[in-house]
């Protein structure tokens, strides 16, 4: 397939089809990066994001980490026990 505007592009004058292609490809990319991150990522810049971060990394963060992790040693011990008594 021969690109219709390639010859013109070589002379510094992109053809209309090339411009259209650029718009089609680059448009969504620009729109993606141009969109407010507050809407795209609630862990970025929105008020909700700030509140979520404050709650997650609040004073009880390590207490929550410890509570979440408490099952791990018990499960590891259980697996060791199963391994020992397996036929």
């Amino acid at each position: 397939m021969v690109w219709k505007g390639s010859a013109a592009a070589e002379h510094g004058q992109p053809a209309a089809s090339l411009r259209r292609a650029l718009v089609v490809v680059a448009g969504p990319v620009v729109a993606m990066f141009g969109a407010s991150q507050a809407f795209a990522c609630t862990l970025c810049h929105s008020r909700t994001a700030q509140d979520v971060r404050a709650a997650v990394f609040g004073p009880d963060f390590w207490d929550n980490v410890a509570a979440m992790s408490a099952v791990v040693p018990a499960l590891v011990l259980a697996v060791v026990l199963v391994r020992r008594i397996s036929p």
Partner: protein
Amino acid sequence: MMATNVIEGAKTTRHLTTAGTVIGIGMGGFFDGIVFHQILQIHNMLSARVPTDTLVGAKVNMVWDGLFHAGVWIATAIGIALLWHAVKRSDVLLSGKALSGSMLLGFGLFNLIEGLINHHILQIHHVYEILGQSAWDYVFLASGVVLILSGWRLIRSAGS
């Protein structure tokens, strides 16, 4: 010929059951997280500490749910690695009963231990959060015991 050699040299299901148990723990965790946390939304990881009836509360729980899922993903990955090592050993009885039994056992261990620690001792969430501690927490423990016994029975019958 190779299969015959494997069976003749087989002495134990120990490595297989270890792998299956770890995979079962991971899959039990995924079942809990996917069915109860996400689809039914009857509890979340810290729903007894952080209420989920606000956007911020729901998203905070979502973060902790994500960490929980990361943990059970790691458990499943470790189980798959252990399974790979087990099937390469010549002294392992490659029994489907032992593997499926140990996965049930792991699933049950997850329900029993997670239920005991998270629902009853630490009370970071309950099975049906809106009720607080309820009969459903005991049903969850009982399901763990039933799965453990069923799995163990399958493992024991593997060599027979």
